[in-house]
């Protein structure tokens, strides 16, 4: 309750500061809100907002899929670890935005490139988490599975995957944050549409209301997606917390 009151007070302060200031750089909250309704028209949703969200989610899904596949596979062959680990650590440490210009150059400024960059940046936390967790799956679980007569494929599906799930989801949560960052950045470079583009372009054209509206919308979307992730996580990990 008090928390919501604080939010109200902060918004009120924003409003007052916006009305008092004459620089035009900091519009009142209500102006930003009014501009938000423009962003929520069907046209703008179709050309900017939904494609952005779609790319972020597609990239994130690809990152989780490939991160899991590669990470679990590499972790399954434990002897590979000393050979590949340093290279993996380096690749993970490359800040994903640094790759963006060369990716655009090599692959072209297309939607697919942006999805690839989002996935390429977000894949590492998942991959590393899957690799670590698979390497260290409780050996007792594997013994039980072997004595029960399971074949390696069944052991992977019925024992390894559930065992690494908590670590995998922790990695995916970090990946989600990176996916959102990469979504915005990828739309600020060599782009003509998307939420990131709208925000940057608004600033360049001094449409400050619209810039803030874009950020508000992005924050709301980020909040929604994170909340959705938490719901999925709770469902999958019911056994883990109890």
């Amino acid at each position, binding site marked *: 309750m008090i928390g919501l009151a604080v939010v109200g007070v902060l918004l009120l302060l924003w409003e007052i500061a916006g009305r008092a200031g004459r620089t035009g750089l900091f519009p009142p909250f209500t102006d930003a809100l009014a501009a938000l309704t423009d962003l929520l028209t069907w046209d703008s949703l179709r050309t900017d907002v939904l494609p952005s969200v779609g790319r972020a989610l597609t990239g994130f899904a690809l990152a989780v899929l490939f991160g899991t596949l590669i990470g679990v596979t590499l972790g399954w062959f434990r002897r590979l670890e000393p050979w590949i680990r340093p290279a993996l650590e380096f690749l993970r440490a490359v800040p994903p935005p640094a790759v963006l210009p060369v990716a655009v150059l*090599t692959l072209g400024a297309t939607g697919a490139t942006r999805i690839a960059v989002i996935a390429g940046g977000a894949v590492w936390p998942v991959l590393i988490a899957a690799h670590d967790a698979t390497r260290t799956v409780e050996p007792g679980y594997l013994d039980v599975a072997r004595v029960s007569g399971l074949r390696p494929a069944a052991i992977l599906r019925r024992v390894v995957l559930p065992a690494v799930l908590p670590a995998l989801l922790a990695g995916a949560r970090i990946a989600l944050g990176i996916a959102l960052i990469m979504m915005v950045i990828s739309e600020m470079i060599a782009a003509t549409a998307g939420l990131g583009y709208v925000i940057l372009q608004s600033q360049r054209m001094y449409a400050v209301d619209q810039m803030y509206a874009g950020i508000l919308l992005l924050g709301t979307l980020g909040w929604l997606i994170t909340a959705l992730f938490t719901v999925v996580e709770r469902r999958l990990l019911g056994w883990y917390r109890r």
Partner: protein
Amino acid sequence: MRGVTGFAVLLLGWEGLRMLRVLPPTAAPGVRDVVASADAGLVRAAGETLLAWALGLALAAVIGIGLGVLVGLSRWADDATRPTTEFLRPIPVVALIPVAIVLIGIDTRMQAALVGLACLWPLMISTRFGVRDVDPLLIESGRVLGASGLRLVTRVTWPAALPAIRTGLRTAASLGIVVAIAVELVAGSPGLGHYIAQQQAAGQIAASYAGVLVSGVLGWAISATFRTRS
């Protein structure tokens, strides 16, 4: 030694893909060209990125850990700030680049501010968790031994929360370098991101790859530093 072999395979794979024309040789330069293109500008750019990162992280450490201790100790402060932080946190900081340009400009201060904002959340959340998670038995023991108020916090709560704070610092440090380079890329603030974009625009492909490589080394050095310290 075996790790080096892993790197060698990676580089050979790159060269192989170029030779087979899977990677277009025009857009994907050879390893030797990339290494040869390193110059003083690249080193300067790396220094600028590092500076913005360090300033931002320091800023976030002071504010984030302070706030984290506050909301960790006081339920009231926690309740009061929670909805605000819950909304602010999922906003990708890079979305605020245009705002920061408008309000601050495009220099290192602006970069530091955004890096600081991005790093604020992991630091604040893990500090709050660490403070809250201190074993009540430790607090009780501290009380019994006569510590109270500030003494209790500095002598018992703080050391007990330190491992969690270190974890937050590690996350923040890695995130910080990502944000620093993103800001340079979009806003043109001095640093590696700007360097990479500029070289690419000028057709110096090998040099822009060298920039990517150096940012990787930087990111790797940062995560290695913060891992061994904790």
